[in-house]
């Protein structure tokens, strides 16, 4: 009976979403406040019913209700309970429901944390969110119902979750990623609302800024988790493959980064308004495109589930409606906006403009490389693939350029910056980062052009960031006082930029100085990888909850011959789907990973073994954590809180007060 309740809840949610999409919007256009007042209760109701549906699906998984087709296809009674839980979003239907849960969660958050916004704005924003929700609920109910039953022949047991997905990474990767993807719908809704009532001003930018930042932070974490998971579970030590599905998540991240920066300019200086709106539309459209690419089955990868042409068509129509209608609105309304503020040819505005140019250029490159083969295939013009070298070759220079620009841009001033002054400012950071880069090259013992440029760019960003912090925190009352006086959003920016530098350093060093060896080894053999020695001691067998495994025991010795660690990489055979999975042994460290994976058995007593030495590979994910932390710190800035407080109590808040709810809307 529970699944039917879930189905009912979804249908009720669809009704509420339809009301939300229409009623407050009509109210805002006709100026009837009673209708606008419906927006918040409708958002709350919508959330309750979607959450109920999600809870019921989870219940079906935890109680092994294999009469539900989706459960039967993605779970098994032998599955540990936490994987049963994460299996809820292990397939197409459930992950779509998670998407919708996130969407209505964001809608609810907007409803709750927007008390200070004008009612007209809130009702329009929530209406737009409602429209998006209608689209996705229709998609779920019509093409991918998670509550479909297999009656009367209920299977005795489920077909099990794909073993690749039975992993801690999968428990958290999709929710994080979706939080980010879907979070951009808020920025989109704000942009559309602003276009509808022609109110594109600094206030609008300030309202949509924290939402964009939160979404971006979650997306950063989601992408990093995906990369981490690929590294230890899927990729034999690779951490980014330029796989179309990865690109699908990178695209909104890139344009979202551009959006975040252009919003800053719009808030502070009131320029780039139409551009910012366009970016908000593009970013959400790219999120939808990503969903389309991953869910429609036009791509094949771990993420693509059973493909169904009907679903692809539906999503494509949804995408087309979103893009066409919002761009039409944009075309009619954006010219209304006039810009009065002035800025010089060299100013912070121009630096941020260039930042946007680079980010949009890289978005377009990745988009081209991702879509081109699909389009050609669709037009029947041949099957081709665009390899990793294309992306590496085109993306790397843009990333390096963005880093160099960022280092210089940190020192620039709004309105006008003197070129000579800026040049003199940059001399010391330039010298310092050249020195650091040279030391790194010497440390790794080999000069490589790409390693040099990447390392230089990364250290340039770090040094310029700290240099700027040092200068800004100078105060007669002492350094500590000066440091305390900086705003949280400034520290957020510092963390974000450091995060980017850390990722860049990690990517550069790991790909230039990493060592990878595939060797044939028998127990007793020793192989060298970098400065380390791997000794294959013995093999053995063990049994897990739903798999049997054959493992190899390896001792890793350093150049002195001391034991560093013991790793037991294994080959697992899952009992239900009979899949063989490789589970790597990784000795992780801040400065290097040693990675051992067992390949196939090549002879009676010999195995193919992959040994890898990965310097700084952890920095890739560490940097993403920095970025996300920076984002969350930035939105806790006082200027977002004080307004709240003032409105609530009508009493000015003392400047040192830490009271008041930070804009933790997303949680």
């Amino acid at each position, binding site marked *: 009976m529970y699944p039917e309740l879930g189905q009912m809840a979804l249908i009720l949610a669809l009704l509420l979403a339809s009301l939300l999409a229409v009623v407050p919007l009509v109210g805002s256009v006709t100026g009837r406040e009673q209708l606008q007042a419906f927006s918040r209760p409708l958002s709350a109701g919508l959330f309750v019913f979607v959450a109920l549906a999600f809870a019921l699906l989870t219940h079906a998984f935890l109680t092994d209700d294999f009469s539900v087709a989706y459960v039967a296809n993605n779970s098994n009674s032998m599955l540990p309970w936490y994987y049963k839980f994460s299996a809820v979003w292990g397939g197409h239907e459930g992950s779509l429901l998670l998407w919708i849960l996130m969407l209505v969660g964001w809608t609810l958050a907007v409803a709750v944390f927007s008390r200070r916004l004008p009612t007209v704005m809130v009702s329009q924003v929530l209406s737009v969110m409602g429209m998006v929700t209608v689209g996705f609920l229709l998609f779920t109910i019509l093409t991918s119902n998670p509550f479909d039953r297999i009656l009367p022949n209920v299977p005795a047991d489920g077909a099990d979750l*794909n073993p*690749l997905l039975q992993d801690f990474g999968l428990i958290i990767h999709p929710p994080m990623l979706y939080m980010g993807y879907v979070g951009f719908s808020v920025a989109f809704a704000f942009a559309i609302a602003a276009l509808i009532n022609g109110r594109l001003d600094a206030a609008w930018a300030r309202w949509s800024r924290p939402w964009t930042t939160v979404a971006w932070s979650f997306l950063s974490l989601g992408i990093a988790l995906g990369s981490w998971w690929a590294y230890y579970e*899927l990729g*034999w030590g690779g951490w980014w493959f330029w796989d179309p599905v990865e690109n699908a998540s990178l695209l909104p991240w890139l344009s979202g980064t551009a959006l975040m920066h252009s919003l800053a300019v719009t808030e502070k200086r009131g320029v780039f308004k139409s551009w910012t709106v366009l970016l908000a539309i593009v970013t959400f459209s790219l999120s939808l495109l990503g969903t389309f690419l991953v869910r429609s089955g036009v791509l*094949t990868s*771990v993420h693509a589930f059973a493909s169904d042409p009907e679903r692809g068509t539906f999503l494509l129509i949804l995408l087309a409606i979103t893009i066409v209608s919002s761009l039409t609105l944009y075309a009619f309304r954006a010219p209304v906006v006039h810009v009065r503020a*002035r*800025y*010089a*040819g060299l100013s912070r505005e*121009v630096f941020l*403009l*260039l930042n946007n*140019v*680079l980010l949009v*250029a890289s978005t*377009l*490159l990745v988009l*081209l490389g991702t879509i*081109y083969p699909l389009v050609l295939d669709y037009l029947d013009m*041949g*099957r*081709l*693939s*665009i*390899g990793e*070298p*294309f992306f590496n*070759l*085109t993306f790397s*220079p843009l990333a390096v350029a963005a880093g160099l620009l960022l280092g210089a841009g940190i020192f620039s001033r709004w309105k006008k910056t003197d070129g000579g002054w800026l040049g003199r400012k940059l001399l010391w950071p330039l010298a310092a980062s050249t020195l650091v880069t040279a030391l790194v090259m010497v440390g790794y013992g080999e000069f490589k052009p790409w390693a040099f440029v990447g390392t230089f760019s990364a250290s340039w960003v770090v040094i310029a960031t700290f240099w700027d912090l040092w200068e800004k925190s100078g105060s007669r009352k002492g350094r500590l006082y000066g440091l305390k006086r900086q705003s949280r959003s400034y520290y957020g920016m510092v963390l974000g930029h450091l995060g980017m530098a850390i990722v860049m350093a990690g990517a550069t060093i790991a790909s230039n100085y990493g060592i990878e060896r*595939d*060797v*044939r080894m028998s127990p007793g053999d020793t192989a060298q990888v970098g400065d380390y020695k791997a000794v294959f001691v013995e093999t053995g067998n063990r049994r897990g909850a739903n798999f049997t495994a054959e493992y190899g025991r390896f001792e890793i010795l350093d150049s002195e011959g001391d034991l560093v660690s013991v790793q037991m990489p294994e*080959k697992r055979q899952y009992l239900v*789907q*009979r*899949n*063989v*999975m*490789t589970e790597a042994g990784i000795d992780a460290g801040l400065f290097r990973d040693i990675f051992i*994976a067992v*390949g*196939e058995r*090549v*002879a009676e007593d010999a195995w*193919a073994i*992959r040994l890898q030495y990965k310097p700084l590979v952890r920095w890739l994910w560490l940097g993403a954590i920095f970025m996300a932390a920076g984002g969350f710190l930035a939105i806790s800035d006082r200027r977002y809180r004080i307004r709240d407080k003032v409105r609530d109590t009508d009493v000015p808040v003392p400047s040192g007060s830490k009271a008041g709810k930070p804009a933790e809307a997303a949680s």
Partner: protein
Amino acid sequence: MHPVRKKRLTIVLFLLIGLSIAVALTTYALRQNINLFYDPSQIAAGEAPVDVRIRAGGMVQEDSVIRDPESLKVEFKVTDFTSSVLVEYTGILPDLFAEGQGVVAMGRLDGEGRFMADQVLAKHDENYMPPEVNDALEKAASLRAAESTGAAESSTGY
């Protein structure tokens, strides 16, 4: 020149420069990195270029996998059941690589019709068939069917 126009001009110039660099890089990179797919019949017929990085795919022929006893070198035949091509690869094969499974290999053809692979992909799901391989198999099968039904029908062909 008017300062506002001058500013606009700089912005437009920047955009143009950025755009042209991007276009130049892209076309260059694309030309180098497009990997076309060929099926075993096309390779056997000599349609595939020699010493250019391409992709080839089909089913791994039964009893064709030969491993070198000393190293990780392995040889196998990839077939679409009409023709087959010999693939040579050194390294670790994917978990789902097996005789009778569909694979896609990246690499170059040498002058003697051997395919020197630097990457072999077999997908994560045992029921999954790479779409290229599926197409190639269907094409080969329909060709064989057309041949066996004789010339009478081929005149009515498309």
